[in-house]
């Protein structure tokens, strides 16, 4: 089963290496991983998706928490969360199909962030399913390039602060 976890860690050199090394060494199956600043200076926040059974999930949490620089780990899979992903897609577009693409962009509340004679760059933000859905439609026009950030998550209402405590 897939789980979404959030980990907070000190923003120090090599921390990402420690986390990535742990995932590799313990043979954890990580599907996506994003990391960036949190609201607290010096604390980074990582969202990652891991696939595994209860034992593996418990190992991911306890082994990560054991890293000296990791301050907190939370499994938010069963919490009400806002989950978003951002994708940039460069799609083949010319005068014959541009209008059709613009229509899809409009339906998916995506946006055009670059226009060239024979291509468009589309930005879409949303839950993964919505991103997937638009991507499969755009595939019909010829996707030239694509980049996705992976999942970021935040618990709704009283969520977690950088200390991992309910705020």
């Amino acid at each position, binding site marked *: 089963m897939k789980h979404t976890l959030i980990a907070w860690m000190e923003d120090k050199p090599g921390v990402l290496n420690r986390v990535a090394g742990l995932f590799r060494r313990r043979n954890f199956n990580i599907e996506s991983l994003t990391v960036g600043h949190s609201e607290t200076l010096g604390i980074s926040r990582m969202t990652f998706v891991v696939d595994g059974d209860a034992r593996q999930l418990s190992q991911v949490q306890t082994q990560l928490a054991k890293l*000296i620089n990791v301050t907190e780990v939370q499994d938010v899979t069963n919490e009400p969360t806002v989950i978003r992903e951002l994708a940039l897609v460069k799609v083949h577009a010319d005068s014959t199909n541009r209008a059709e693409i613009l229509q899809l962009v409009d339906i998916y509340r995506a946006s055009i962030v670059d226009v060239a004679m024979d291509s468009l760059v589309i930005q879409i933000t949303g839950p993964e399913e919505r991103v997937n859905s638009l991507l499969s439609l755009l595939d019909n026009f010829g996707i030239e390039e694509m980049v996705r950030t992976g999942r970021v998550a935040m618990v709704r209402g009283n969520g977690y602060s950088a200390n991992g405590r309910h705020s």
Partner: protein
Amino acid sequence: MSEKKSGAQIVWESLMREEVEVVFGLPGGATLPIYDALAKYEYPVRHVLVTHEQGASHMADGYARATGRVGVCMATSGPGATNLITGLTTANMDSSPVVAITGQVPTSLLGRDGFQEADVQGVSLPVTKHNYLVTDVQELPQALKEAFYIARTGRPGPVLVDICKDAQQAEMEFEYPDRVDLPGYNPNITAADPDAIARAARLINEAERPLIVAGHGISIARAEAELRQLAEKANVPVATSLLGISTFPETHPLSIGMGGMHGEAFTNYALQECDVLVAIGARLDDRLTGVFSTFAPKARIIHIDLDPSEVGKNLTIDTPVVGDALLTLRALLPLVEPSEHPAWVAQIEQWKSDTDQRDLLAQETEELVPPFIIRQLWYLTNQGDCAIVSDVGQHQMWEAQYFPHTKERSLFTSGGLGTMGFALPAAIGVQMGRPDEEVWVVAGDGGFQMTMPELSTVAAEGLPIKIAIINNGYLGMVRQWQDVFYDKRYAGTPLFNPDFLKIADAYGIHAVAVDRKEDVEGAIRQAQSHAGPFLIDFRVEPFANVFPMVAPGKSNVDMIRRPMPATAEETSEG
């Protein structure tokens, strides 16, 4: 206003504040400033020069295990630091508090692959509890303070501090920090959650066939007395892991010895048949459990461990009890009701019934078999009043089987990593930590040669270490597997050995060879009465194997037992 000091001085100033008495190391280009400061300012820290840095990390580990204090080793950049890695991994697997200080190339040369540069932080990262790369002298006092704190608190382990040469030379106004800044580290030395303890007590009280598995965590937490109280109060038999040996007196009526791959048959039957298993400070690794899915199939398992990542790592645990062994046992004891379990105790006694017949010591043979030497050593050390440092292999298992440890923390061995070459350098650390104790190295001829040059450290430091080489001319345990699983094709296992007496003599160490049973006692007594180091080359019967034996990938009760006298070896089914 404090005085300005160089990074090199700060290393020694910090070690002194951590009350470090001895450092095991070998200097090099990237640690020259640190070594020069030791000579120039005459810091009262004893430096023990090793012959190879692997020895330094094993010595620091042995010192730490013997004293319960942090052991310190030191090496230069590049190969010096990478040579430490086997010892650090050994310490990490066995939760031993070690601080390794390594020199690194100057900051300006980092990442340029210059002479003797290695990514030591990267290399040591997965085999240490934590590590630091210090590029600025201003970071050095905090890094050293935290290194010692992390190494010795919580579940102990090795911490490495890599210090760039320019940071050793730069100066700062030194003040040793009085606190650490580690928001993500909570060593959590507390008793477990009271509800979990109550659940554990209820299971123990309801049990008809309870069993304790005692591990290394007992001795790290110094909970030997509480373990004994628990066992005696509820009459619970006590099995141990390899590193759990010497946490519970093995002559005690409730002791059933080490379980697992080379455990006694009755110990493994007890593990198989118990209805409640209380694992305390034990990792429950594959050497103890056999195939995970077949371990203790009838038992509800209570796992008491300080490290939450150990609980449920290998087995499904019915009652996780995350807490310090000492404090948790203290909280558990009043909740446990006195009990007898006569049928269960009688059952285990019945399983023991044929063990004596199968015992190698009961066989009438003129051959010098290793168990005979081990038992003689036990007898002649006033029944185990000494520290044994065993290496890895057949002799290690015979030691575990035939030396009934009754003294707390009297066995030191590489349990988790199984590091051949551990014994001699680790014994140097043990002897330095316990100068008044009789320290015996028990090593095979293969493992002994891996770190044999540390004989020079033994001789130079004048340490009265006694060395028993169990010399069978083979990498014995590997040979044993070739005997059992590979149709006796001895690929790579016959050894070409030097004359160990001449080797010892070259270092000025007294030595004798023994190849007859009747000479064992005399040789051990000679070693004991000799004031300095002493080596005995026991030339043993080469084809003796260690039984019982659980084949890898098998259940613990599916073991090859010791043969009954004058019959072929049999595979036991119960």
